């Protein structure tokens, strides 16, 4: 197990380094630089001077070596578009993404497991077929489209929820603690539900087939023969044994929700990692782009590592390895 963990960590490290390297060069090869979009009244002489001061006129390999040195010392650089250190920007963005992600993942799995279990128990009925069709539909919807339509429908046409952001731009600072929590929750509903609905469709499909695998097995029949209530049979005996693939999904969904959050955060102006990454790319904010890639990459690697660990905890057969 320990050797396996070391191998996985090494693998993740290689991936993070590779992806960071690629994004370092790609963002510099894209047209424009951090100073071509800021302040259009700025004199071009001043612009050139700023480029020289920050070393963006140096050859790329030289810039890259300096970048590596900085990262090795834990310095992620300075964000020109946010006028703050990249570390500070990301330290604020990560908890916001985690709040959104954990709400979305929790809702997605609660919904997905419930629907999938219901389908398996009512296997073959009209309810099973109808929900399968609906799930297939949700499974095929792109996240950016559902996000935009949710915003259009429930923030503009029927104004049930605020139209984006994480807090009320004006009133939040004047609210009581309870009011602030309610304010954030109201802003959280639409983006979290959008993400949850999309992933719940896939999760339900796994849960359904996993439970259908388990239901015809002998121990389930034994439980029924003992005279246990059907509810106990399904919830306590069958469902527990059908959770293995779902547990893998929990871990594997962590990285995908970081990636998926890119568009959803952008549409709902939720100021997390995805939103920061999108605006950093648009502003050619070099250090912020590489910073989000490094931190995002580490989060993704930790997510898939966590998936493996969860799996080992849930499946005793894997623990000995």
């Amino acid at each position, binding site marked *: 197990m320990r050797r396996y963990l070391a191998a*996985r960590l090494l693998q*993740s490290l290689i991936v993070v380094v590779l992806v960071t390297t690629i994004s370092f060069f790609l963002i510099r090869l894209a047209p424009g630089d951090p100073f071509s979009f800021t302040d259009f009244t700025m004199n071009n002489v001043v612009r050139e001077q700023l480029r020289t001061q920050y070393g963006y006129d140096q050859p790329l390999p030289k810039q890259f070596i300096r970048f590596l040195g900085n990262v090795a010392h834990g310095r992620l650089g300075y964000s020109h578009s946010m006028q703050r250190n990249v570390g500070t920007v990301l330290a604020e963005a990560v908890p916001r993404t985690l709040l959104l992600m954990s709400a979305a993942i929790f809702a997605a799995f609660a919904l997905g497991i419930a629907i999938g279990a219901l389908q398996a128990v009512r296997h073959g009925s009209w309810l099973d077929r109808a929900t399968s069709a609906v799930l297939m539909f949700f499974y095929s919807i*792109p996240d950016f*489209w559902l996000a*935009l339509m949710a*915003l259009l429908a429930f923030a503009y046409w029927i104004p049930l929820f605020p139209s984006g952001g994480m807090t009320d731009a004006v009133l939040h600072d004047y609210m009581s603690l309870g009011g602030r929590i309610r304010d954030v929750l109201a802003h959280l509903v639409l983006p979290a539900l959008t993400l949850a609905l999309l992933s719940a469709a896939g999760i339900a499909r796994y849960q359904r087939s996993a439970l*259908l695998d388990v239901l015809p097995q002998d121990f389930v029949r034994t439980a029924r023969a003992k005279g246990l209530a059907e509810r106990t049979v399904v919830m306590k005996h069958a469902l527990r044994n059908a959770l293995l*693939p779902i547990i893998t999904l929990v871990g594997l969904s962590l990285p995908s929700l970081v990636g998926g959050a890119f568009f959803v955060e952008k549409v709902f102006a939720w100021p997390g990692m995805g939103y920061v990454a999108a605006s950093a790319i648009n502003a050619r904010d070099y250090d912020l782009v590489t910073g989000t890639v490094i931190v995002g990459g580490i989060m993704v690697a930790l997510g898939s590592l966590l998936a493996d660990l969860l*799996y080992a905890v849930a499946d005793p057969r894997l623990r000995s*390895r």
Partner: protein
Amino acid sequence: MPSPTRVSAPADRLAASLVAPAMAADAPSLVTRRRLTGTMWWSLALIFLLCIIAIFAQQLAPYPPNAQLDIIGLKSRPPSGAHPLGTDQYSRDLLSRMLFGARISLSVAMLAVLLSATVGTAYGLISGYRGGRVDAVMMRLVAVLALWSPVPLSALILVIGLTGWFEVSRLVRAEVLSVMQREYVVAARGLGASGPRIVWRHILPNVLNPVIVSATLGVGNVIILEAGLSYLGIGARAPTASWGSIFFDGSDAFQTTWWIALFPGLAIILTVLAFNVFGTALRDTLDPHQLAGDRAR
């Protein structure tokens, strides 16, 4: 079994179960099979229709896709008789743009999937057939590469195609390992057939089914991916339309011009849905041994 499979055990299991059908434990009874072929036919018809639309976009489109018809009178008009899907902010006819956009979206998706299926199959065949150290190194490489999300470069099809074959190669390798144990492969080897001949004539035809299924399901993913990449400016270049680029053109002012974002989104959903339904039905027909129910019993 060499260690790489263990290194990525849960991921492999997931990849395998991704291919396990949605209709998982359904016994392939006559009733379900008839129902499946029913869904198979309408989804196939829909895919066919979409391809026809893409091919004959020139004839079907009422206006040229990039023509600015009347920048004052027809700017951002909602759907009407003359413009069934409305016009965009440059007074271009949305229906015409979407018909031409179908060309880009569908051809990018299909070509990219074709490329990734070919590369993945070749890779998996070699890795699985050679076995031993070659296999260990090749699969370890895939395990690292597979964590890679598509990297934005210039040629979109190449990028998506060349970053999308990792799962296919694992799938094929696993199939090769099981097919190689079959009597007919052993017999062919006993008769003195060469390695390439065994791979080409005996193994390849028997591992193709899961590839076809995963490729069909992959088309939908790539359509969505292309749309997402066009937001980053990597997809179709303005003024060329793809469904993704039209959508993101419209998303800036969606409160007032909602139709520009709504209709390309519906087109994407319809297409992805058709490919997903067809792929699932295909899997249940081509790949009955993947039915999870068979494993349990």
